[in-house]
């Protein structure tokens, strides 16, 4: 009898240990985020505090993320698509699940200005919380641009969208984002047209302008420009604000005398929002909510901003963001610049095809 009881308690103890072990191992969250987009110590701190293992994977284009999500069964629990057009369209396709806001008490830290702008794409902010936001502007090597154009700083899209100007920069190297959904709205805005125009005539005008400056553009690419600019391989890049600030930072660290600056041109620029969302088929929903809530802590997201040089959508974090970043109008623009920043909604499939086709014409000449 006693032997049997002992045996039973031993097995149950064993089982308890076993299930506990399995349970602890099960606490995983699979995060899929942009490359160079987080201070990796945040991930370690999160695991230390919650015991949830983070499997962190990266991409460098919204298209890659979107294709994985649309195919289904991606296995990711947290993804960070750009609000427009990607998140908006993906919500429509049924890619995401609604957030359980009762599990996200830190939502109270978020910045209403950003939430209101995002609500245009994610009505009621039901599917996503902001991670970072920024602008699509011009990053440049101050010394080489002065040599080529004779100016101390660039403050207008004229520098890269006027053929005679960009021709002077061609020799030292100009990169553009390989992203029609970022470049066409920028060009339309520069031409004084509506940035979200879907009219074939307007798009033809934008295409024509791009073709006129095409011979002076060395490459269209969405991530190579960070290193190329930092190394001094090129002198101008039209790209995402934070990437260009990272280029500035890397150049400063390398101490090879390369000085990079970023500008939001006076004509205005596209504003974009990278949003954290949970796919409908995410295998670890509870852990995903914990991760999101953790990322909305002021001190955590401030640490991330201090590392990646992007503004975040977290109002409470602003006192903790380094002064150099908070006071930089290229990162946290003043109100008058903010008023000039525009957003563009998703295109319908027919316009999307026209936009992609026009883009192929721009980059290949065919």
């Amino acid at each position, binding site marked *: 009898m006693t032997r049997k009881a002992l045996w039973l308690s031993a097995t149950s103890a064993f089982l308890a240990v076993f299930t506990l072990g399995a349970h602890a191992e099960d606490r995983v969250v699979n995060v899929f985020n942009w490359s160079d987009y987080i201070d990796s110590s945040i991930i370690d701190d999160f695991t230390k505090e919650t015991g949830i293992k983070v499997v962190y994977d990266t991409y460098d*284009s919204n*298209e*890659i993320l*979107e*294709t994985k*999500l*649309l*195919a*289904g069964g991606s296995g990711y629990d947290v993804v960070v698509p750009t609000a427009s057009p990607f998140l908006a*369209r993906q919500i*429509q*396709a*049924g*890619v995401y699940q609604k957030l359980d806001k009762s599990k996200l008490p830190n939502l109270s830290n978020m910045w209403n200005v950003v939430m209101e702008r995002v609500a245009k794409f994610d009505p009621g902010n039901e599917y996503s919380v902001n991670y970072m936001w920024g602008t699509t502007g011009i990053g440049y090597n101050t010394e080489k641009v002065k040599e080529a154009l004779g100016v101390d700083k660039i403050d207008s899209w004229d520098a890269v969208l006027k053929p005679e100007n960009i021709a002077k920069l061609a020799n030292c*190297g100009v990169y553009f984002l*390989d992203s*029609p959904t970022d470049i066409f709205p920028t060009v339309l805005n520069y031409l004084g047209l509506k940035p979200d125009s879907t009219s074939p005539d307007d798009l033809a005008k934008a295409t024509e302008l791009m073709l006129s400056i095409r011979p002076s*553009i*060395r*490459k*269209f*690419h969405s991530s190579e420009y960070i290193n190329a600019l930092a*190394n*001094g*391989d090129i002198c101008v890049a039209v790209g995402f604000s934070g990437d260009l600030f990272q280029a500035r930072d890397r150049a400063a660290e390398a101490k090879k005398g390369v000085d990079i600056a970023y500008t939001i041109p006076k004509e205005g620029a596209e504003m974009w929002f990278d949003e954290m969302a949970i796919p409908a088929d995410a295998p670890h929903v509870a852990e995903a909510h914990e991760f999101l809530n953790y990322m909305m802590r002021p001190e955590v997201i401030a640490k991330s901003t201090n590392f990646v040089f992007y503004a975040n959508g977290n109002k409470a974090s602003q006192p903790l963001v380094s002064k150099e970043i908070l006071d930089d109008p290229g990162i946290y623009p003043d109100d008058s610049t903010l008023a000039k920043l525009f957003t563009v909604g998703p295109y319908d*499939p027919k316009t*999307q*095809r026209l936009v*992609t*086709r026009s*883009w*192929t014409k721009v*980059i*290949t*000449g*065919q």
Partner: protein
Amino acid sequence: MSAVTAATSSSASAAGKSALARLGAALVSRLVIIIPYLWLLFFFLVPFIIVFKISLSQTAIAMPPYTPVLDFRDGVSGVVAWFGALNFDNYIWLTQDALYFNAYVTSVIVAAISTVLTLVIGYPIAYGMARAPATIRPTLLMLVILPFWTSFLIRVYAWIGILKPEGLLNELLLATGIISHRLIILNTYTAIFIGIVYSYLPFMVLPLYSALEKMDNSLIEAAKDLGCPPTSAFWKITFPLSLPGVIAGCLLVFIPAVGEFVIPDLLGGSQTLMIGRTLWSEFFGNRDWPVSSAVAVILLLLLIVPIMLFQRAQARAQEQDL
């Protein structure tokens, strides 16, 4: 009497045994043939049918991003409706925009030029290896295979470091005074050719080497004895005998080079219009899985011709060996 019956019965059982053995052997050989067929079925035919089906669909904002999706819940009428919704519109679309035709043509031209360059560079290497003393041949073979020990992607990235304007090559040429201006090689077709030739060279050298190594050297000696000069001995004897290796090597380079995506993307400029890139922008940029599937099906049809040529050449080479 009893002896006779015993004899007949034993011979009958022997015949039965040998029939059984023959049946067994036939089954085993069938089985051996079945395995590659199963492989083809699951890893070629089934994926191809799926891609072909998607190419007959239309795009949609949904998961997955096309319609119709087969749904057995509606029973037979559902399947009928599914068949009814499929059509060849996407193939017609491909003929309406010159982009696709141009991309196919560019890809074939780039692959063809790369193949010729690889042959011209690979042949002397293979020839030298086959003529080298037998003791060092294994080492030479090893050297050809050695690059595979490093990831293909990293080796292509290394070329960026070599070819870029501030890269090793330019610095070297400037330092030695061969050039006075930095050469722009990266992001041009030249860089693509360098990348493809470099990456695919082993696939050319190995079949050439195996063809040249088997060659009977006494044939060349006989030609020399009869007063044939070395160059015409090469063109009249060595080259024709190495032809199976030339064909195998060329196809092994040409076929993957047509659909190459990584090398043009990393080393080529934005203006390079190859079919891999076109597929990418249809699939990722437009999220148009049906059209990109149609592009892929056409690419496959385009490649089937050289693949069949390759198989015929191989079959012929095998017959010769037998």
